């Protein structure tokens, strides 16, 4: 991805200036030491400790006896029906969110790619949803979706779409999509900015060549713009998928996994298992499954989209 190219390009560039840097490794590691120490202590060590914990039956309801159970936590967790419910909810949430963000961000990027008065103001206001804390975002949408006094009901009633107020979040068929909508709203700005930058970097010559070849506007969009946007889309898809798969804040604020487990995603399952059932061993096992799934997801998206570049 980006960082891969960054690393490669700079490694190559650095070769040229090696000669005048005899004593540098020590200085370099000295300068890197604070960051490395923090990351080793606060990320690597905990994640390894989490692996260790996941092999024990550690329950705060029974703190004095912590037997080693090997892979039993993983087996237990996977055998529960709720685990597969959580997996399917997470998959639906992630897929819907990624597609919606990509489409809306593309539309906004196409708009901001034009030159017109107020474009810069619009570009600046684009950052508002991005900057809003996820908790405030959750509250805002909870109030919009409110079944008695919410804005969604108000708008739809005034527009004549519905005849009486509905309990939006209370309907299991809609809950997950409504939460995804709140999530998409917040993630669209960053995605639009990334796609816009990619769009701006498309060489003008490509359009000229296409025009010479007789391509009209929609054809130029299909055959020049869209293929050239692939790197931008890759970044967006990987980023949004990784944020969506671990989404917790909105679930916590909006529905707490309900109604009837309709929004019971993986991260909510981890929370319930760890902090409500106080079963840290199985909680750690679930966390590990989610972490590995995230890694795998990033890897496969990069490979799948990268190959077609």
């Amino acid at each position, binding site marked *: 991805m980006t960082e891969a190219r960054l690393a490669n390009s700079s490694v190559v560039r650095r070769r040229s200036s090696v000669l005048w840097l005899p004593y540098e490794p020590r200085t370099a590691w000295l300068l890197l030491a604070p960051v490395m120490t*923090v990351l080793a202590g606060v990320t690597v060590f905990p994640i390894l400790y989490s692996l260790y914990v996941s092999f024990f039956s550690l329950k705060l309801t029974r703190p004095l006896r912590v037997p080693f159970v090997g892979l039993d936590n993983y087996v237990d967790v996977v055998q529960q029906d709720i685990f597969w419910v959580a997996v399917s909810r997470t998959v639906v949430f992630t897929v819907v969110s990624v597609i919606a963000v990509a489409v809306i961000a593309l539309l906004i990027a196409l708009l901001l790619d034009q030159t017109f008065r107020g474009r810069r103001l619009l570009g600046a206001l684009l950052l508002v949803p991005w900057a809003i804390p996820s908790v405030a975002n959750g509250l805002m949408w909870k109030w919009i979706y409110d079944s008695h006094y919410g804005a969604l009901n108000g708008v739809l009633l005034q527009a004549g779409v519905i005849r009486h107020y509905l309990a939006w979040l209370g309907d299991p068929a809609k809950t997950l999509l409504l939460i995804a909508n709140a999530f998409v709203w917040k993630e669209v700005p960053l995605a639009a900015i990334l796609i816009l930058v990619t769009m701006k970097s498309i060489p003008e010559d490509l359009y000229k060549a296409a025009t010479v070849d007789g391509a009209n506007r929609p054809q130029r969009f299909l055959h020049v713009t869209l293929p050239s946007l692939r790197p931008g889309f890759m970044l967006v898809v990987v980023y949004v998928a990784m944020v969506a798969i671990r989404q917790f804040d909105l679930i916590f604020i909006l529905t707490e996994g309900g109604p009837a487990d309709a929004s019971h995603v993986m991260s909510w399952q981890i929370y319930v298992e760890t902090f409500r059932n106080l079963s840290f061993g199985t909680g750690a096992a679930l966390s590990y499954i989610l972490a590995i799934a995230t890694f795998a997801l990033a890897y496969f998206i990069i490979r799948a989209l990268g190959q077609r570049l």
Partner: protein
Amino acid sequence: MSVAVASGTRRTERYRVRPRAAGIARALGLFVASALTLVYLLGPVCWMVSSSFQNEAEITSVPPHWIPDHPTLRNFEAIVERPSRAVTYETRSKIDPVSGGYIPSTARNLLPAMGNSLIVAGAVVLLNLLAGVPAAYALAKIHFRGRASSIYFILSTRVVPDIALVVPFFLFIRKLGLLDNLISLIVTYLAITVPFTVFILVNYFEALPDELDKAARVDGCSRLQALLHVYLPLAVPSLVAVTLFAFLASWNEFLLALMFTQTIASQTVPIVVASFASDFTISFSFINAAGVIAVIPPVILALVFERYIVSGLTAGAVKG
């Protein structure tokens, strides 16, 4: 256009008239698209702000009052009120006949929580710069074995979902006796934000020419002096971006704060605001006011420093 007879006039007609018609259509299209985008981006926020200025009677009207008929500052006053004047269960009807006591006494926790959030975010920003700048300088301007893998390592730590870190974090912090202490938040937020800081700064430092370094060294500067006197002044835009990202991430973080904080001694704004949301007796107009309070600092920062943020966010994308 069909009016034109001679082919010559037809051509000039076409060049003169069509662009104007097309121009109007284009302007109209752009206007409609911009308006739709604006409503999508700001509509929900405006509704939150409008709700926060309504009293309990107005906010429960059907259909909603999009603009308050009787705007009130009651919700915001409750947040800055001194304890002696605060609404309690006993005094609610006397002090606040309008909202009927729908504002919780914990409303006063919001200001201390803002203090906590500021301390945490400020400390995280400072530590980010102190740790991130030397690291980024080393990765960008020094050749050593393990350079590329160091960058990979730093970035890969962000692939780990925060929720996977919650269990071990919680166990450690409990063991260290740092539950309900701001230090636990500062340290964990530092680990979450510093990879991105390093990534942006490496990008930026790499774009600055190596010759500056060489020249400074020839003039007798040490590595540290070269960094402080030559590169840092040039890197101010990226430092601004990094400061903002670290600040916003710390101000907005919820999950870890939810696990580590227990009382107002360490609770941050998102925690206090979220605590209002789970209480069904609290007026939604007050909850919206709390939401507005939480939203104002990050949104103002984002709008003021928009240019730095966009260039920071796209620093990686342009290269990739």
